[in-house]
Each structure stands twice: as C-alpha cells, then as structure tokens.
C-alpha cells in the first residue's frame, strides 16, 4: 500500500496505534491509523492488509479518517476475563469488596519504574457473568468469568491491574493464568455502552491523501 513515511534521516512508516492491548491479551477490537501518500479504496486496502497479515490478525474494516484523532475517540474498553478453576461464588465476593471500595491501590512495573495507582475509579462496570457458554479450552473445569468496562485514563488501568485489585481487596489468587479478551473499545455512550469509534467516519468512500 502507498504508505506515507515520516521525514528525516531514518523515515518511519506513519502508523499509530490507539490504546493497544497488552502483550499476551487477546482482542476483538484493535484500532490503528495509517498515513497514506495517495487515495485508495478503503475496502481494497482492507483486503490487501488482511492478506499480508498473519492468520488470526483479521482486518475487519477501514474508513477514511475524519477530523480529530483516533485516540480521542477511545474513551473506554470492554474486557472479558476467564478465570479457570476459580469458584464463581468466590469471585462474586471479591467483586463486591472491590466495588464497595472507594479506592484500590495497585502496583505495576512501567517503563518509568514501579508505580502505584488507583485501579478502582476507572472501572465503570465489573460483573461476574454466569458461565453459560463453555469457555475456550477448559471444558469440565469450573471457571468464573468477569466482564469489565474500564475508562481510558493515564496511567491506563488494564485487566491485570483490576485482577491485582481483586487480590488486594479479597486475596483472590487465580491458580492458573487468566485468559483476557478485549471485546470492544471506543466512545462511551450516555448509557455506559461502547460505540464503534469509526462510526463517525462511516460515510467516507476513499481513504488517505490529506
């Protein structure tokens, strides 16, 4: 694709990722912005990118970027966390304690070193979901499932921070690695739902060239 490059001694392709999922986390909803040198048909661009990327990295849609940055449209993220071998009742109690707390301080190593921050305020909703569907790869084992909607803040509050918070308030220690999936991210509606951040640009027919 006719990708645009930055100026300078070592030009880099113009790609910016908005609120990328952490390493090791699955996602159904990642967004990125690409600068182009020429106008192309968005659907053709989507197909070309999809063909070049690895299996499992599926490019679902492309639109011409309108005004404002993509990052400004990412206000919140919807996560699903599968906790194999955790009793849903135990998780229920931990979530109740987390919700009841005004502030839950957690620690994480960042590029700037160890930081302590509140994992509670950014959490818009936290619900234990009944395990109606069979969670992937864990048939007969009990499994608790958590769904979260978390506001995009700085420093960002990630699913592992919320799990750290559950350990802080209720000593919840998942015996095996949790499986985390981002289900959606985008603008936050008045009802606390998440809207597709590309909706505002849906009418565009061609991409690039600005």
């Amino acid at each position, binding site marked *: *694709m*006719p990708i645009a*490059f930055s100026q300078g*001694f*070592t*030009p880099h392709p113009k790609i910016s990722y908005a609120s990328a999922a952490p*390493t*090791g986390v699955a996602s159904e909803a990642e967004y990125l912005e690409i600068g182009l*040198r*020429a*106008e*192309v*048909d968005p659907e*053709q*661009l989507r*197909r*070309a990118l999809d*063909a*070049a*990327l*690895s*299996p*499992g*990295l599926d490019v679902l849609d492309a639109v011409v970027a309108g005004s404002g940055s993509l990052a400004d449209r990412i206000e919140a993220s919807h996560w699903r966390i599968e906790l194999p071998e955790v009793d849903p009742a135990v998780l229920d109690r931990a979530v109740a304690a987390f919700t009841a707390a005004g502030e839950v301080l957690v620690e994480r190593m960042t590029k700037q070193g160890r930081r302590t921050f509140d994992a509670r305020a950014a959490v818009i909703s936290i619900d234990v979901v009944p395990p109606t569907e069979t969670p992937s*790869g864990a048939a007969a084992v009990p499994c608790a499932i958590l769904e979260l909607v978390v506001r995009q803040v700085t420093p960002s509050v990630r699913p592992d921070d919320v799990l750290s918070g559950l350990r802080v308030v209720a000593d919840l220690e998942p015996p*095996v*690695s949790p*499986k985390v999936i981002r289900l959606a991210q985008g603008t936050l509606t008045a009802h606390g739902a998440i809207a597709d951040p590309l909706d505002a640009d849906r009418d565009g027919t061609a991409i690039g060239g600005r």
Partner: protein
Amino acid sequence: MSVPSTTPRPAAAHSVWPQLEPLLPQVTKPIQYVGGELGAVVKDWDAATVRWALMYPDAYEVGLPNQGVQILYEVLNELPDVLAERTYAVWPDLEALMRAQGVPQFTVDAHRAVRAFDVFGVSFSTELGYTNLLTAIDLAGIPMLAADRTDDDPVIVAGGHAAFNPEPIADFIDAAVLGDGEEAVLEITAIVREWKAEGSPGGRDELLLRLARTESVYVPRFYDVDYLPDGRIQRVVPNRADVPFRVHKRTTMDLDAWPYPKKPLVPLAETVHERYAVEIFRGCTRGCRFCQAGMITRPVRERSITTVGQMVKEGLEFSGFHEVGLLSLSSADHSEIGDMCSGLAQQYEGTNVSLSLPSTRVDAFNIDLAQELSRNGRRTGLTFAPEGGSERIRKVINKMVSKEDLIRTVVTAYTNGWRQVKLYFMCGLPTETDDDVLEIADMAHEVIRAGRAATGSKDIRCTVSIGGFVPKPHTPFQWAAMERPEVIDGRLKMLKQAINSDRSLGRAIGFRYHDGEPSLIEGLLSRGDRRVGAVIRKVWESGGRFDGWSEHFSYQRWVDAAAEVLPGFGVDLDWYTTRQREELEVLPWDHLDSGLDKDWLWQDWQDSLSEYEQDDCRWTPCFDCGVCPSMDTEIQIGPTGRKLLPLTPVDGGGLRLPSGAQQ
C-alpha cells in the same frame, strides 16, 4: 535430566498450541513462539509423505533471518508431498515451563511436536549452538544418544559450516551433510520417500545405510575411531561394508538455477536482520588462512547480475522489506559488482529502499560502491578488515593489505563524507607477538591523524573491533596452537593503553573486543573429536545453554566439565586447544572431504610460517588447492556484460495483494 521416551509417536501430529498458549503470558517476548509470519507455510500433515523440522539452534531473533534455513524451508515446501516447518531454541524461561507442563519442542509454523517429523535438520553456523541442540532433542522427547533411538524418532541431520567437523556431536546426531544444502535435502527427501513407500524395510538402520551410501551423507555410527596410547587418533574406519571411507561435500553449481529465497520470511518479532538478503556469489578464493568459510565453500560461483536484479525486485515486492543486503564472503569481488550497485541504486532511487554491501575489502573501489549505494541519502556503515595489525602478521594470514592502502582508503572515506569507519582485526593469530597487536594502535592513530589533516575537521572517528582467532578444520591453521586466554586478554589490555596513550587521538578511537575465554571453548568444539561429546553433555547437564550469548556463557562450566571428563581419555582442554599438531597426525575430520588436498593445506601452513603470500586463482593460475578436480567443479564467474534495466515505475497509489501469502 529426562527419561528417553518409549511411547510411540502419534500418527497425526496435533498442535501443541492449546498447551503452549497459557505459558506464553509468563515468558519474555512471547511473539517469537507464535509463528504466522508472511512467508510461513502450513501444510496438511496427512497429505505429506516426507516431513522435515528445520532448526537454527539459537533464539528466534537470531535464527529467523538465517539464509540457510530459509532457503531449505522454501526448497522443501515447494515439493507437493513434502512439508517443512521451523523450530528455534526456546529461552530458559519457556524451557522451564515446558518441562513443568510437559510441552515438547515444537515448530513455530503449526506448533507440531518435533518428534513427530521424519527428519530433524539442524543448521550450525557456529559450534556454540551445540548445547542448544541437546536442549531441543531432550525437550522433543527424543533419546539423547543416537544409539538409543528407535523407528519412532526422527533422523537428526546436522548441516552448516560446523558440520564439516561434526565429531564432537557425533553421539547426538544421526547424520551430517557437508556443503551446500539445496540439492542435499532433495536427495535425502527422495531416499526417505522411497524407503517409506517400500514400508520402511530394515527400519532406521536401513534408512541410515541408504543415506550413507550416497557418499555425501555422513553417518557417524558407521565409523569407528581408534586412538593411540598418547590420545591421538590412530584411524577412523567404516565398521560395515558398503559405506565409503570418505564422505564428500556437496556443491551446488549454477546459482542462477537456485534463486532462493524467493519468498523471504518477514518476522513479527524483532530480529537481528530485517532485510531481504541476496547471496551474490558463493565461495571465496582470496585465501585468508584463518577463514574456514572461504576454504570449504570453493570454488567461487557467481549469481548473475540479472538474476540478482530479478531476485531483489521479487523479494521486495513479496516481503515489503526496505533494506537489501548483497551478501557473500567478499562482495566487492563480484565480477559485475559495479554495474550491479549502480543499476540497483538507479532502480530504487527516490524510494525508501536502502541497499547495503558488507564492505570489508580495503580499497577505494569499495568506497565507490558504498557511494553508489547511498544515493537515497542513507549511508551505510563502512567496515574495513585488515585483520592483522602488522605487515608481517598479514603475510602470515594471507591478507594482502599494506598500511598505506588502509590509511589511503580510510582517508578517502572521510573526505567522501563518512564520519565514522570500523576497522576489524583479530587477536591470537599463529606466530603473533605483542608487537603485532600493538601496531593496531599505530594504525588507528595514523588513520585519525591523516583523516583530520585531509578533512580539516576533528569530527571523524574510527572503531577498532577485535575478534578472537579460532583455528578451524579444513584450513591451513587446522594444525595451529591457540594462544592462552590470559595472553590474549593481556595483549588487548596493552592495545587499549597504547590507543589511549595519545589522548587527543585516543578520544576519536572506539575499542571493542571479546575476551579470550569464549574463543578457547569455540576452539575446543571446532577441532574436537568424539570424546568432546562427553564435555558438551556435561556442560548441558549442569545448565549450559545459549553459549553464543555472553550473558549465558560460562567459561568455568566448560573448564570444569573438561577437567571432569577428559582426563579419563588421557587428554585435557589444552591438548585440544593450545597444542600444535604434527603433519602426520590423523585429524578428527580427515575422513570428511571438503575437496581441499591435505598436502596443499600443509604446504599453505608452511608458507604461512615463512610469511609467503598466496594469490587468488580467479586472476592468477590455479595453485592446486584440490577442490575443483576432486569435486568436479569449476570457477563460475562473469562478466555477463548484461545491465540492469530501469524498473517500470510502480503506480504510487497501487495496492497489491502479496502473492502466495497465507489467507
């Protein structure tokens, strides 16, 4: 560490992904284990009749760009009934989790267990990958010793330059292939295919025998080594009929007929080289006496300028890489390198493609080429390799460069706008004295002094980079004694002081070097015999991994293991490293034929000691190294007289679907 597995392998190889995936969040750089790169191939297991697992025994970031593995991967996968997948060394963090959870060594392509494949091919460019081989065999659940393997285990084949003396790993591999791999893997595939089609008669033993009968696949178990009371080898002889006394290297002629890689792998994780690399020729007859690559890959076989142009065009279109490397052992020596560089520079002018040439030849022509390649504004680094500090030692190693040549060349680089050049030398060379090494400091000082005078600027630098000399099999230095690590380290310390003795000049000179200790161990492994296998195993059992990485390498572990194991054989670490060999000593690799005549090698060693230089057979008469007549090969060089034509301008707004990409 593990019990040899006696369970039969499953008929179909299922993906270990469900067991592997939960481990990945717990390890560093998990993306290296995921696969799915552009260029990767996943085929139906049941539709394949011959299945290869190919390994580069280092971390993914080093192994993925390896040309040899990429070429064989593509050559094999082009066959409809053959499947080839890749596996790399896993880091100790994942190794520990795999052991705890019972996850076997897996391929990154379809995450299949390595033990389920028919052939497990491992490419060694350095002997320091041997401990990683043992980890992979053990994690795969394959018995560590070749002798304990059954029909349910793959045939483990070693290749790459280190396979020209595979004796130290003879107990752990089933076979070794010397030389170019393209045709060798096809021949092995054909033998395995036929043997399986016949219902695998005679089991594993029969298959290995058929491989050995080709006379170009070495099967160590069919050879016995007898030793003299003093520890030297008495003889190496076949222990069964029908097996050749000597095994010969393979040489792929006509590189234009083998234009690989066509579909280079584009890694998702960061790797050491992210570029499209084209080999512009194979082999080298410059005759540097320390250089094993130059000795064992003769004769020179050029790829034509037009094939190189075509490969660059198609390789870039497929991969989207922005960098092209024109590789070989001495790229400026290609008979049409001038036209090749200017042609490619013209074709890619105004694009983001940068071209690079590993530049080690010490002459102004090299700078012309680098100028040509930097048309797009991006200057690649310039490295010159005089290799030896004094005129005398350069005669010993047959590197014909004078001090004046070097200074003139580097000054030309500075006056053409380069602010920084790298100078490469070796330490520990045969006959080397302190003075030979100290002359490196004089040379660097003069380079800076002359550079400042010529440019009128103080803003010029050079980096002196020193590598440790390791004597290698099939070179004139195969008989040479290694210097002790403490002597090397002492010389490097003196050199550093000498460089900094003039503070004004010293400030402009960077100094990089490697300690002498890892080189000594590399020396043990490169000239070792079968008895060294016990040392490798001991080191591995005590935790040795990733010996090519300074943060993982432990000299003490090797010294301790050697002291524990070798005296039982009446030898020791010094015996393998710092001992000079006599002319008539049987060397562990004498039954492996690189084409070089042993008498010629000995004569070249004697010439080295009398500081007599040997010219290149591309522009002077043949000096009878023995390769061409014994291998039935010949020098293949141009010029073809052809030129690269301008590329049809690509439509700036064009979108292109990658051909053959996985959907």
